[in-house]
Each structure stands twice: as C-alpha cells, then as structure tokens.
C-alpha cells in the first residue's frame, strides 16, 4: 500500500490528530484524496485546495490521474505558487 507522509505540519495535521505517516489504499491521486477524506474528514478537501503532493519524488499539483504504485511514497506539502 502507498505510504502517505504529512511532511508539512501545517493545516493538514489538525485532521489527522497529529498523525504524520500512514498507509492508504489508493491507486491514483483522485482515489487517494477520496480515501483521505473518508478516513480524516476535511483532509481530502485540504489536500485538494491548498496542498501539492510529491509522489516518489516528483511534485504534482491537481492531477487526479497520476498513478500510485504499491509502496509509493507520497508527501503532502504546501501548494507552491510563486511571484
């Protein structure tokens, strides 16, 4: 199962009661968000609205279809904007 790491302690942790690392049953980014929302109500929305994910090292922003492998390492980080 892919492992999710809340690299950022920001808003996300308030949904997981401080939990920063856990496994999630999901095969792509969209299913990941739905699963996060089911397990930690609010977190899925938070991830979708204001966070980016790094899947096995690469940053993705808003890309539902990105595939997750079993054993994928998924970091939830603040969404990146810029000037």
């Amino acid at each position, binding site marked *: 199962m892919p492992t999710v790491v809340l690299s950022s*302690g920001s808003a996300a942790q*308030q949904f997981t009661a401080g939990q920063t690392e856990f496994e999630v049953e999901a095969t792509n980014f969209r299913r990941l968000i739905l699963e996060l929302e089911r397990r930690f109500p609010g977190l899925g929305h938070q991830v979708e609205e204001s966070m980016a994910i*790094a899947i096995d*090292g690469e940053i993705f922003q808003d890309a539902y279809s990105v595939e997750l492998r079993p054993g994928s390492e998924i970091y939830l980080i*603040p*969404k990146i*904007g*810029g000037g």
Partner: protein
Amino acid sequence: MNYIDSSLKVVGTRPIRPDGVDKVTGRAVFAADTRASGMLWGKILRSPHAHANIVSIDTTKAAALKGVFAVVTGQDFPEIASEEAFVGEGPMNFRDLSLNCMARTKVLYEGHALAAVAASTQEIADQALALIDVTYEVLPHVIDVEDAMAPGAPVLHADMFTSGVTPKPETASNIAKVVTFKKGDIDAGFAEAEVIVEGSYTTQPVHQAYIEPHACLATYSPDGQVQIHSSSQGHFMIRAYVAKLLGMSISNIRVNPAEIGGGFGGKTLVYLEPVAVTLSKKSGRSVKMQMTREDVFRASGPTSGAAMTVKIGAKKDGTIVAAQQVLKFQAGAFAGSPIGPGCMCGFAMYDLPNVDVVGYDVVSNRPKVAAYRAPGAPITSFAVESLMDELAIKLGIDALTLREKNAAKNGTKTHYGPVHQNIGFTAVLDAVKSHPHWKSPLKEGHGRGLATGFWFNIGGESSAQVHVNEDGTVTAATGSPDIGGSRASIGMMVAEVLGVPATTVRTIVADTASIGFTFLTGGSRVTFATGMAATQAAEKVVEDLKRRAAQTWDIPVDAVEWKDGAAYPAGSNAGAFEPLDLAALALKAGRTGGPILAEVSINAQGAGPGFGAHICDVSVDKETGHVKIERYTAIQDVGKAIHPSYVEGQIQGGAAQGIGWALSEEYIYNAKGLMENAGFLDYRVPVASDMPMIEAVLVEVPNPRHPFGARGVGEVPIVPPMAAIANAIRSATGLRMPDLPMSPPKVRAALDAAG
C-alpha cells in the same frame, strides 16, 4: 514532440518582441490609460490608524455632494464564509480577501480600505472622501513579528487559533500556523558534527515596487454583466476573485487584460476591482480607479519581513550532517505568508541527511503580504547562505568548495519530500568555478561574496490557440498576461514548430471570454506551461496542414512531411509536387475543411526547478558605511533560453531587486504604527547610478518535461543577492551583517562596534 536535441532556427535567437513598438512609442494601453463614456472616478477612504474598531461611518454628507454618484462601505459587500482556496499565488482565504478589499467592523493596518466613492472628477471624489465621518475606537497595535508572537500582544483576529499544533490552542493569537519539516534525526546529526555554526537573522518587508500603480476600469450593466479592464498578473484570477467576493457568476464577468506595468507577484490579488464593480453597480456608470503610489505602499502587499535562526553542523571536511532553521514570517494583517516555501527553499540546494525546520505564519498590523518573486526563498536563503559563509570560514574551506561538497544532485532527496531530478545545480557551480569573475584576483579594499539560490518553478493550467490567417500569417493567442516578454518566447516556439520566421507569428493575450482558463502569470510558469500549450497547438496545426496537403495532392497523409514552413512530398515515391506553404494552404482552407486553427488547454506538470549562484564584489566606505557594488555576476540554470535577451533581463532585474532588498529597501514605521516612507523618495529602490552592469550567465541543462527544455527563470535570480552581498561585506570588512537592509548607518555602527 520534443525538440531538445533538434537543430533550432528560431528558439535561441533574439527577435524583436511583438509588442515592442507599442511600448517604445507610448501606444501600449495600460489599465490607467483606459476610458469609458460617462466614466466616473472611484477613490477609497483608507484607515489613518494601524488598528481600530470602526464604531460608525456616516456617508450622508459625502453622498449629498454634487458630482458624487455612489458611496460604498463594508455593508455593500456580501459576507463571505471563511474558505481557503488557491486562486492566485498561495493559499488565500476568500473572507480575508474580502475584508482586505473593504473592512467591515475593524481596520487592521494604516491604509486599510473602509469606504469608497465614485464621482465625476477626481477632485470631487477627494472632497467626498473628506466628508465621510468615521468614528474609530483606536486599539493597541503590533508591527514587529516577534512582538506579535509575544504573550499579551494585541490580537488582530479573535478567531485565530494556531493551526499545525496539537492539541489545538485554547486561546486566540497572532500565530496563524506552524509548519514543520523533518528529515532524519537532527539530534544524532548534531551529535556527530565536528563543527557547529549558528546565527540569527532578520529581514524587512520589501515591496515589489512595480512602477505602475494598481488600476482598473469596471462597468456593471443592468443585466448583471460586468466588463473589467485591469492590470494584473492574471485576468482569470481577477474574474474568479470578483465572482467569489461579489457573489456573481463567472459567465457574467469579462476581464480584459490591460498591459501590466510590472507585478513581480504583487499583482496576484485583487484590491480595486471588487470595489470598482460595486461602485459601478451602485452608480450605473463605468468607474475607473487607480492607486496613488502612497496607496500602493500602504495598502498593497509587500513580502514578509522575518526573524530567523539557523544552526548547521558539519564534519571537518565540510560534510554537513545537520541543519536546523526556525523561521518567523510576517503575514501582514491576514494569514498567509510564504512560510511554506520559506521552510522548503532554505536548504533545498544541499544534500543533507538530517534537517529540522519550523516555520511560523504571523499576523501583525501591516498590509497583507502578497507574493514577491520566489516568495519566501530570498528570506530563508539570506539566513542559510550567510551561515554557510561562516561555516566555510570556520572550516577554512573555500565558499565554493563547501557548496560543491554538499550540493544537491539528481536523486538527492529534499527535506520536504521530493527527490531532485534533472537539476543543474552542479553545472551552475562548475560555471562559477570557471568564470573569470570568480578566478579574478580581488581588488585592494574590495570583498567578494558567493551565494546560491533555488526555486521550484511551477506548471499549471494554460490555454493557447494558434490560428493560421487567410494569408498564411499566424496569430498565437494565450491567456497569460505578458509581464516581460512572454509574447516573444511563445511566438518563437510556435514559429519553430511551424517552420516560419518569428515575425510571421503575432502573439496576443486574449481576454477571459476569448480563450480557455489560464492560471495567472507567476511561479515562472508562462514560458514553461503556456509555452507547452502553444507548442502543442502548433503541432496540431501542422498535423492539420499535412492532412490538407495530402488531400490537395490526393496522397496519404503519411506521405507528407512538414519542413521549413511548408508541406513536401515525403520522398520521390510520394509523387512530385510543388511544396505547399502556409499561404498556399491558407488560400485553399475553405476547400480543405475550413479555417485552420487549434486550441490546446493543459495542466502542465514537470516544471524543472531552477538553481542559481551569484558572485558579488563590493567596496565599503568605512567612514560612511556606504556599500558599493563593484562587480556582479549572476549564473543560473535556465534549462533552455527561448529568447536569451529576455532570460538575461529576468536575471538582471531579479538581481537588481535583490540588491535593493540587501542595501536600501525597508518599511519604516513610527510609534503609532504608521508607515513613514510610503513613496519612492524614501522607499529606496535602486536607481541607475547605484548599479553596475550585471553579467547574466546562462547555463542550459534542459528540462526534459518541456518540449524545448525550458525552465522557469524569473524567480531564482532574486534569491541569492542578499547573502552574496552580506558575504562580500564580510569579506571586505570582517563583519557579519545579519540584519537587512545593510544600510550605511547599520554598517557604520557595526564598524564602530568592531573598533
């Protein structure tokens, strides 16, 4: 298709930009240059206090003044629920944005808008503002970030409970959130360190200081349709914010992108547009608004000032084994400093086993910060790169060697999660080593500093259209405001794909009703993401043109090849036909399927991160403390320079802004929390005579995720300058200047203290 290894005819050359002539003749239309029939002038009443409750606002006298057509206050704006979203740059809470555009019950900083008028002339509008009676209950204020965090500090928002800490705090504070990033075991790291250096640093808020003040023209029609002409980094962003803040449907709002007179991140929010639309709705007339320079400084977003501590542990050979950082960022009056990127960027240049970073997002009675070129990175990097210099000195290792030894490479896992891929940091450091500036002997009395910088760069949603006109010329339309030459770079990529000269392609910025959604111009994304969309649109056009040629010649499509702007039979057995160029194919378009155009909308992923290193020589007048930049070289991995002149321009401009940040720019507040230098006279941006030439060195490590290998280039160059200059001053005087700006009085005081 990927063109990285192809021989290119247009990309990499330096044609004149499509919008150039308009901009050197005064024809270019910026927002303040627009007019409408029956137009009124809108002006805003701003708070004279840093922090106060609005007891009452009486607008009757103002409304009664002849020539006044509308007066609005917070009551004329819908209440917005607290909802965080990502429309502009970085997370933004719609309720906060609405309150920032027009205060309701409380003003949170000097310059905070609390009422507005629309009148037939600017003078009448000013008189009307003077007739608005406001009763304030002045509250204690707090300006400095650490004061704002202290127990007992005046609290700006009774409902702000620090997020990111568990358990959730019981009491409200000015700390909006705490962000933490951890990698490895920081204690074990410091335990194995043979040398440990520590430092505390502060930076001041600095303004983007674009020369064009915010301006817009809004027209609300009785049928609910809204037209807005506005200067911004994203007309789709303006549309989204206006719709959200005023409860309108997006289809009723059309935003026309005026030319934008500089933004640097500062034009990624709305300030005037929702007010202008509301005034227009109430008056039934078009309303034009423009900020004064003083308004720009007092009421639009600078970037955060910060207080920081950094601690780095290393082996004697220079191998860094532990790195720790605490960052306290000012957000201004509402939450949302660039603390996330601040925490991620400081150590991103290095391969570090054990990292611990904690960041605080802190509100105080200052204007809400806005994005500014690599938001957060220059601040955090000033601290880290200053301390890296101290570490090199303490270890007796050359500053470049120390960085080479710890440099991030492909496969390096960052402390915030991602793994660096296809990065050019070592190539940049190689370029430093071989550069004549780095190798040149230091002049008598001069000091030399080196510092590096990182920015993620982003992709995101972009739309582009490529039209082949009836005569075979080409129009490329995108949804990205051109803030510094992107019309040129996008047109060049389209021309390259079509095999025509750059001058054959005119690039335009289409309004929100004329092209697909496009995320704003920011994050150094336009040449990457919008360029990618335009390239794909051009490729679709080429496929269509080949089909039309095949149809004309009555041969299979795969027997047609496209080169040098024309269709050719692919080899002799395809048949002998005269090539059909764009003009020939356009002439017959009606017979081969109608008009020739393609639109592509994408969400571009895979923006390649950018790295840079700056070398700076300074001299210091030891009697006055004045620092002179004697020589400056900025080296950066740009992936692939589409139009090298504008890439160099981004690097030179970013470096110049960094030099101002380092030496002379700051907000000066008096004891009442009022800004004392809200103008270009005393908010000191660099002038021509302050600057040396800035040598921009382009290192090209292609980004495989972009068809031409491009990376964002606009933000990295503002990251290294402050530390590069601080390190140069250290080299010239032996003094570490930990507080920005390194202004003459501070430098002279440090020299005196050192005796």
